[in-house]
Structures are given as C-alpha cells and as structure tokens.
C-alpha cells in the first residue's frame, strides 16, 4: 500500500509540470507584455525593450520556464505586477480561505450526495426515489452564479439570516461561528451541482447493489431495510462512491470560482479573477499552480482511499 501511494505521488509530478508549462506558455503567447505593463503606456519602445532584456523576457520560452521553475523550487513565485508584493505571500494568504470553502463544499457534496443516493437507491421506484431524483435533476441544473445570487437575495437580504460577502471581516474578533455563518451560502452554492451528480450516480450503484444475492440473503436473515442499505449495500457502494466524489474536486473548483466572485470570498479564485483582469501574469501563474496542486492532491487521496476500501483493486 505504501509503495503504491509513493508511486502515485511521483506520478503527480509530471502532471503538475505539464499544467505549469501550459499555463506559462499560454500567458506568454497572449498579446501584451509584462515590461509594457510595468512601465506604462507612456514609456518609449526603447525603454520597454531595455526592461524586457533586464527581465529576461527576450529569451526563448523554455529557458524562461526553466528559470521560473528553478525559482519555484526555492519558494519564489515572483512579484505581483499589480500589487508589488511577492506572489507567494498572496497565495499563502488566500489558499486557506479557498481550502476552507473547498473542504466545506466537498463535505456537503460527499455527505448529502451519499445520503440522497441511499434514500433514493435503497428504495428504487418508490415515491421517495422519484422525489429525490427530480430534486437532484433540478439541483444539477442550477448554475452557481445564478444560485448564489438567489441565495443571497433570499437569505441575505429578505430573511437577513446570513451575511452577504467575505469571510468575516474584523479578523481579530471573528469567531468560528462568524466564519461558519459566512461559509454557509458559498459552500451550498459551490456544492449544489456536484452534490446532485454524486447523488445520481451513487444512486445507481445502490440500485445495482440492492439487486445482488447478498442483499436477498440479508433480507432472508430478517435484517431491517435500513440496515441492509446503510451497512450491507453501503460496503459495496463505498469504493465507487469515493472515486466519483473524488472526481468532483475539479468541478468544485470550477464552481468555487463563481461563488468566490459572487460572495466576494477572498480565496484563490477571486484573486485569480482580479489578476486576470489586471494582467498580473505572475499571480495568474501562481494561482493556477496552487489550484493544480490542490486538485492533484485531492484526487490522489480519493484514489488511495478507493483502493484502501476495495481489496480487489490492491494489485
């Protein structure tokens, strides 16, 4: 198991390298240039060329990428053009807010995805099953930027139950409760469609499992339906469920980008959005790398967990 974990971990290195290079290349091939951005549009072409040479922007792309990578290995992600502060400071500052949002959304996705799947799949072709299925279809169809604004309107403005934006201003006095209150709506918005997808797919695993002979045997032994679903069928559904839930990490990142903007949640997504608008390439590069790392690690954990849960896959 340990050697498998190590092998999988090493396999993530080329993935991260590939992602970094694609982003690096895309940013450098896009129109515009850092030297011009730094010097301003009033600068003469001569000065721009001089700064390009000073920054090494006139060298081949691969060499520039090598330099960036070498600096990265020393923990240096460069300096933000628009903010004038080190990129690593910004990322370290923002990553916690993002991880908090991701963690909460993922927990909602996994817990409620599994719960709804068991409710529906454990009672195939009943009213309950149909109700859950239809609800999940609706949930899966709600785009996060729309859902977020509707939730804000209802819970933030009409009912005044929850705050509109941010993580909890006034950091010193922020309690866990404050942060939780700020977290509810963004987490629900981020999780909504992934939760529905997980519930629908896992439901079908439950339906399959419920048709298996061991379920029939369990029924013959007089076990309650609840126990059959939550213990007997669950044991066989879990590995597939973990894989499906793990795959959602990527989608959650996509949704989180929208929720971070709508709820002004100060995470990596909001920073990335503002950095793109301001053409702040070092920050864009750093944010994408941070997202890729979290994505890859999340999937790695899901993979290993699925293998741990399913003896057949330990090869």
């Amino acid at each position: 198991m340990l050697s498998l974990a190590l092998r999988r971990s090493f396999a993530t290195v080329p993935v991260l390298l590939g992602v970094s290079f694609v982003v690096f290349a895309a940013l450098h091939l896009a129109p515009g240039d850092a030297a011009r951005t730094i010097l301003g549009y009033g600068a003469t072409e001569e000065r721009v060329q001089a700064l390009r040479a000073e920054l090494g922007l006139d060298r081949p792309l691969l060499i520039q990428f090598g330099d960036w990578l070498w600096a990265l290995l020393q923990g240096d992600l460069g300096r933000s053009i628009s903010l004038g502060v080190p990129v690593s400071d910004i990322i370290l500052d923002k990553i916690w807010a993002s991880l908090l949002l991701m963690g909460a959304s993922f927990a909602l996705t996994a817990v409620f995805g599994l719960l709804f799947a068991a409710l529906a799949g454990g009672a195939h072709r009943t009213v309950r099953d149909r109700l859950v299925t239809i609800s999940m279809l609706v949930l899966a169809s709600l785009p996060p930027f729309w859902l977020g604004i509707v939730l804000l309107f209802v819970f933030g403005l009409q009912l005044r139950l929850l705050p509109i934006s941010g993580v909890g201003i006034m950091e010193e006095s922020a309690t866990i409760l404050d942060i939780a209150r700020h977290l509810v709506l963004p987490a629900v918005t981020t999780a909504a469609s992934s939760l529905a997808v997980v519930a629908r797919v896992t439901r079908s695993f439950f339906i399959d499992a419920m048709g298996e002979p061991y379920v029939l045997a369990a029924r013959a032994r007089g076990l309650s339906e609840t126990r059959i679903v939550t213990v007997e069928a669950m044991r066989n559904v879990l590995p597939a469920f973990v894989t499906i839930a793990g795959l959602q990490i990527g989608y959650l990142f996509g949704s989180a980008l929208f929720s971070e903007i709508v709820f002004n949640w100060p995470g990596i997504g909001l920073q990335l959005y503002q950095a793109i608008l301001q053409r702040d390439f070092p920050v864009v590069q750093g944010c994408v790398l941070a997202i890729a790392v979290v994505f890859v690690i999340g999937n790695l954990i899901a993979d290993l967990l699925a293998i741990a849960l399913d003896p057949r896959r330990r090869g």
Partner: protein
Amino acid sequence: MIDCLRNTVVLARRSLLAGAATLALATLAPAPQAMADDTTLTIGIEADLARLDPHISTTWNTFKALLHIYEGFVAEDLLATGVTTPPLVPSLAESWEISDDKTVYTFKLRQGVTFHDGEPWNAEAAKFNLDRMTNPDFEFHQPGAVGMLQWVWGDLESYEVIDEYTFRITLKQPNSEFLRRLSAGGSGTPRMISPAAVREFGNDGINANPVGTGPFKFGEREVGVQTVLVKNEAYWDPERSPKLERIVLRGIPEVTTRELGLLTGELDMISTPSPDSLEYLEAQGITLVKGPVSTIYPIWLNFREEPLQDVRVRRAMAMAIDREGMTKYLRRGTAQPAYGILNFGGPGWDPDYRDFPYDPEAAKALLAEAGYPDGFETRLDWTMGGGGDVNTRADAEWIQRDLGRIGIRATIETFDNGTYWDMLAQGIREGSCCMQVSWGETSFFWLDLILPTSALPPNGFNSGYYENPKMAELLAAARAAPTEEEMVSLLHQIRDIVTEDVAFIPVYTPLQVYAMRPNVKGFVLAPQHWADYTSVFKE
C-alpha cells in the same frame, strides 16, 4: 452486537440532529452589522486596489485611497461644488511663482507639515521624490515612474533646492497645463512619499507601507479583501480634517453583491451600481448621488479598412448612431451624449457644441453616395470593461443595431479589458471598423496619446491610423500656449478638425453613481474619477 450497532446509529442520529440544531442557531443569530460604529465608513468599490506606490499607481480605484494618503505641490479641490472641473488649490506648496517665459516654477513649500512617520516635509523631501521619479542614477529610483509619469515630467529640464522651504522646477518649454498635471491622479501621480519610509522599506516595500502627508494614514490591508485608512490626527489643514475615524475600502467586483451588501448595511456606500437597479435601490431608501465625470467613450474608427477610407462613410456611421436614445433608454439616465472629442471636465469642453446630427436617412443616402448602397460587413471589437465601466457589451449591441439600420452589418467580438488595451495599443486589426474605451481627464494630455501621428501604433493609441500632421502641431501649440484662452482656442481647432475628419465618434459621458445608506452625509460628488472623503460623516 446488533444492539451495539443500533446504539451507534442512534448516537449518530443524535449528533447529526445536534449539529443541525447548532447550524440553525448559528443561522438565526442576529446578523452583526459589519461596521456598526458611526465613525467608520465601509465603501464597496469595483475592484481591489492595485499597488500603493503613487509614482507607479495604476487604476482609478486605487487613487480613491492614494489621494487621501499622499499629497503633491498642488491639488484639485474635490469639495468644490457647481464646477465642471475641480479648481486647483495649493497643497504641499503654499504658493508659487512662474517666470515670465513660463518655464521656471518656484514653489514656496508649506511649513510645519510632517509625513505620517514624523519625517518633516521640506525641499529635500521634494528633491528626494523628484529623484525617485525622474533620475535613473538615484539609489531609490523607481524605473516604472519614467514611463508612467511621462505626461507630467516630459518637459522637465531640472529641479533644485533653493532653501529649506523653497523648491524650483525648470521646464524645457512652457507647458500650459503643468500645474494641472502636477495635481492629477490616476495612472502614475507625482505625489510625495516620505523619504524615510522609502529608505526603511525599500522601493517595493512602499506598496505595503505607504507613508504620505494626507488626511488619512494607511491602516492595514488584506490583499483581495480590504484596505483600511485611519484618520491622521496631525493633519495640517483643519478644514479638511476628517470627520470619520476610519475608511474601509472593499473591492467587490460583482455588482449584485455590492448592491446587496449596501442594502443589508454591510456596506455604507458603493460606487457604480447597475443602471437597472437604481429604481429598486431608491425605493429601499438608498440615497443616490449622480454626476458627470471627466470621461468620454469615443469610438476609434479604423482608417485602414477600405470603406472607412471615405470620409462620407465615417460620417454616415456617426450619423447612424442614436446617442440620445442610448443614454436615455439603455443607460437609463446614467450617461449624457458626448459631442466632440474634448471630454466633459477637460479644458475646452463646451456644453453647447454639437457634431453630427442623428439622421439615419441622410446617413443611408451618404453611404450610397460613397458607393455602398447596400452597406458592407465589418466587425466591432469591444471590451467587457474595467473598473467603472458598466455593461459595455450592451453599447456594442446598440451600435450594431443602429449601424444595421443603414445597411452596415457588424459582428461583435468582446475581450477582457487587459487584452483589449493591448489590442488597442497594437492598432485596430484588419476586418474591424471600431474599438471603444473610456478615457478623458481634467487635462488634455490624453489627446497627445490618441491624435498625433507620433502616437501611431505601437507608440501610442492613435489606433485607427488617423494621419493628420496638423494634430501634432496644434497639440504642441496648445501645450505651449501662454494663456488659458489661447490654449482653449487651439483645443477647439483640434476638436473641429477631428469632427470634420470624423476620426472618432464620441458616444457618451457616463454619470458616475454613488449609492449610500441614508445615514451617510456630507458626501460631495466631484467631477472626477474619485472623491474626497474628508467631509463625509455618519449620523
């Protein structure tokens, strides 16, 4: 065994219920007013601030904070009412003398002013800042400042310390707008930083530790979240001593979130609500303050596209666009039509000037006369907009429809603002007739960047390849004009030629809109991209 399991399930159920109850309680707890005290003003702006070094500052939003932290020799009085351009007033210079040939400015500096770190303001501090902005050999030279402040220091010959409170600046040639440019803000601004702070924190460190002489001091900043300014108790001008203890500037790009934050009281004031929300906000008791700003949205026309090489085609396009309808129905009263290239608030702006009448029939006839009775196909390259722009895509659709009515079939392609400015810097691409950005200032330096042939891409923003040699001549003459009247008269000549050549189609001047809760008082809307918050207080 089964009992044991059952117990576990029951326990699990109970803790789930307990969890749900806690969550419900958390939800029902009264929402704390983010900034309940009445000496703190929380403002929701369109984007987080960029770097806080004034010599290389970039966005108009950032200057909303910088103007309260840093000051220069002269300032625009943003608290003046009933003006189209804020009047110039002394700031860190108490008075000045200008030589007869208008090239030597001798500033008498204000005495007894200290920077927020206690460092005294004097001629040495002025020299330190001039060195930082313009002298490449200076230890603390800021390389970015050279390009960004070209429009201020372009005519600089030399500067010297005369005595502790006298500082002299000599120009190579007269510049009729020199004082105005010294006062201005936005991208690159010649404001004074504490030399001690630059020495202590280094050139880059100023972004995180800005130290000036202004009415507010830098408090703290959480990048991407908020910047807090704190009242400067030792401010030199009692008339502008802040009524508030703290200002919190929160960058919130999503307009709906800004509006909801204002409605719930998380924010006291927001800039640029959506035009479609104004009626709703007003009905909820929100105070709206509207007024024009020194900005214009002109359309650059591409002289390299074959049909547009004929002035009749360009004129037909200008006459086809219903600017009044656009400001009334699309912008819902948050804009006024712009006529002529001189922007509202800038020198020479004339409220009575008119350029092209809206007349689609005549435009169609003109197009036929030019050999395009069936119109032609082209493309509008458009921007999603930056900080203060609202739904610019809708403008493109309005123009597309208007052009369609005279037979010009245009498609629209939209780009993010950064890419768009780079495209503009490279010149309008083949196949596209038009580009549009918001521009304009209280000085006319921006015309130097869009009109003369010296500004043809990639050296400036004469992005439609408008080649009229008279422009450079007239602009130079306007800069060197000995009196304001002569400068204005030359600017009017420039405006009339640009109209005659139909090099640009001016579209509208936006009204900037601030929305605030009813207890926010004392706000003065300046005809500028930013406002002075020293007069604001909460009831």
